[in-house]
């Protein structure tokens, strides 16, 4: 579960912005938010931030809990407001929508919205991360600036995957998809990832994250033979339920010409299989946070 708010985003420290005194210059990624029963609204905080001298120089912005988020209120209103004020942040390069802890709102209770207009409002935006998947949509979009895209969720519907794959992101280098589990909305299977595996999407992709997945073993088995593997430098299968079966499949990466680094942190692999994997692959294998299965039960990291 997402216990803590971000301390760092896109290379900048993150600070809450509540009142004027919190302004420390544009080299900080400020977080605007609204608490439960808050006297101040997120929109008020946003405008207060924009009123600060030098705010037009801001390059990073973090949007936390919006109004009545745990009462099922969607991100529609805050997204609309962000689009409205976009001209006041002409230098924005990184945006996080949904930096919300589990205490503020259960992950699966977060309601998003169509975020393509938000991205379109900032053509030069390079990094976009969003948390939550209910009502999340990516209507048809071509965005030349985006290099880093991440969707953090406990269950990502295949419809959203389809939409993301239909977007033209010619400069996308880093993609993270938290697929989640069926209980929380992942209604697809490994075949839904075929467009990505085929290699015909996102010509500049270098970092591929298929994370927080309850089908990590199946993904591992298929991705090792997919064309996409021949051009990415990192494969990130962390936070999911990867086990020995998946780890054995990953040994096939050893035979590839392209040296891919592997991140399988939060995994259920045995020390024996892990050792064999590291021996087979010449590159960096990150396998932190080993987990112990409870009988057959292997929970993914963010499952709520």
């Amino acid at each position, binding site marked *: 579960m997402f216990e803590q708010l971000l*301390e760092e985003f896109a290379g900048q420290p993150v600070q*809450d912005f509540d009142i004027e005194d919190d302004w420390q210059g544009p080299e900080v990624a400020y977080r605007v938010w609204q608490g439960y029963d808050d006297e101040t609204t997120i929109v008020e905080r946003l405008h207060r931030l924009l009123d600060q001298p030098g705010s037009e120089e801001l390059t990073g912005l973090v949007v936390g809990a919006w109004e009545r988020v*745990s*009462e099922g209120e969607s991100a529609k209103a805050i997204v609309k407001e962000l689009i409205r004020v976009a001209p006041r942040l002409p230098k924005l390069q990184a945006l996080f929508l949904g930096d919300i802890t589990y205490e503020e709102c259960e992950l699966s209770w977060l309601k998003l919205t169509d975020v393509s207009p938000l991205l379109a409002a900032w053509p030069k935006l390079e990094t976009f991360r969003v948390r939550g998947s209910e009502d999340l949509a990516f209507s048809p979009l071509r965005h030349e600036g985006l290099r880093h895209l991440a969707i953090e969720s406990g269950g990502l519907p295949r419809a959203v995957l389809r939409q993301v794959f239909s977007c033209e992101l010619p400069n996308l280098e880093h993609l993270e998809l938290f697929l989640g589990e069926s209980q929380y909305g992942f209604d697809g299977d490994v075949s839904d990832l075929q467009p990505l595996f085929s290699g015909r999407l996102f010509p500049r992709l270098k970092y591929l994250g298929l994370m927080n997945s309850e089908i990590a073993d199946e993904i591992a088995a298929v991705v090792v033979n997919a064309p996409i593997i021949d051009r990415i430098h990192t494969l990130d299968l962390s936070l999911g339920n990867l086990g020995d079966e998946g780890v054995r499949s990953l040994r096939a990466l050893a035979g590839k010409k392209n040296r891919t680094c592997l991140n399988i942190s939060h995994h259920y692999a045995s020390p024996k299989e892990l050792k064999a994997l590291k021996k087979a692959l010449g590159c960096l294998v990150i396998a932190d946070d080993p987990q112990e299965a409870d009988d057959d039960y292997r929970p993914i990291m963010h499952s709520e």
Partner: protein
Amino acid sequence: MITGPSCTPSSCRTAPQVVVVGPPGTRRMELLLAAARRAGWHRPTALPYPRAQLLPHPCLEGTPHRGPPPRHVLVRLDSPQDDLHTLRRLLTLGIAPTAAAGRTPLSPQQIERLSPARGELVHPLQWFLGFRELLQGLSQRWTRNVSWMSHPQAVLQMFDKHACRQLWSAAGLPVAPSPACPQGYDELRQQVRSPHARLFIKLRYGYAAAGATALEWHGSRLRAISTVETVRNAGQTRLFVSRRPQILLDERQIAQLIDLLAQHQIIVEEWLPKARWQGLPFDVRLVLVGGRVRHVVGRARASPFTNLNLGARRIPRDTLMQHLRAWDDLVSLAEQAAACFPTAGTLGLDVLVLPCRRRMVLLEANAFGDYLPGLLHAGATTYEAAFQGYLAS
């Protein structure tokens, strides 16, 4: 009713002996004894609760019952902690009052066979009722030549969250709203009808973080975040304090948990939002000696349960003074809250600061809440301040 400080200047200065009641050999006890020595008392004694319960006077430990009249003693009661012998004695004393309260107590046989695991909460109601029996016994027997750092009556009041709330409300001090007083989950849902609710459920007797459960529902969605784990074993349900908050999403499980906690009596408050420091919600623990605020520390943690035992980050006093927008109000509120326990020489107080960083609410009073090792104020630890406070008064 006792109104003034229980330790008068003359009796304190001539008090030749300090007795600390609690499990000897533990870190808390060692620190308390060391602090007493540093304040000038030469041979402070550690007296375990089971032993204390049998003595007609605290300084008769190790001396024959006949002989010269007992010397004057300053008694500092401290936490029974999880000493097994003490636990068994408290539970034994709690058998009759628990039955009288209409609940099933652990039997003498069960108490004898008791082998609690780490972090286990053994029958919280019976524990408290036994503790109350013991402390009331001490206050009735230890009357001559005894000064209490905190009188047993005050200690017991602070252990009872409902009593604290009533005292504070009567004094016009702010506490979290309490929208329900249920005997179980179903009754709670009947008493709180709104489609969206955020509630905080605590065991009535005991420290808040042990047994605290945050509950939220919205429409048909429901979740509970709890510091309590329940384990069913051979037809019996055991309670454990968990290090990581447990999230429950299943209504039946949630109802079972709340019903179980309700058997030991619960209070229900609104789950209020907290002010944040560096992105983390925090609350404030203050230690008061002689009714005045001494040590103050903020506890920041990414969870609804900000409690130092569970790995919270400490916010130093100076930082808090700058970060809060009503520091003087905080100090004034704390002293007014402590004034409701005039016979408590020392106490810990938990205050919740709302997101505006100006308004505050009293959460709980903790009779033994000055266990903050390493925290200094004016060059003294909390325990040193407690004993020095008596010399100064």
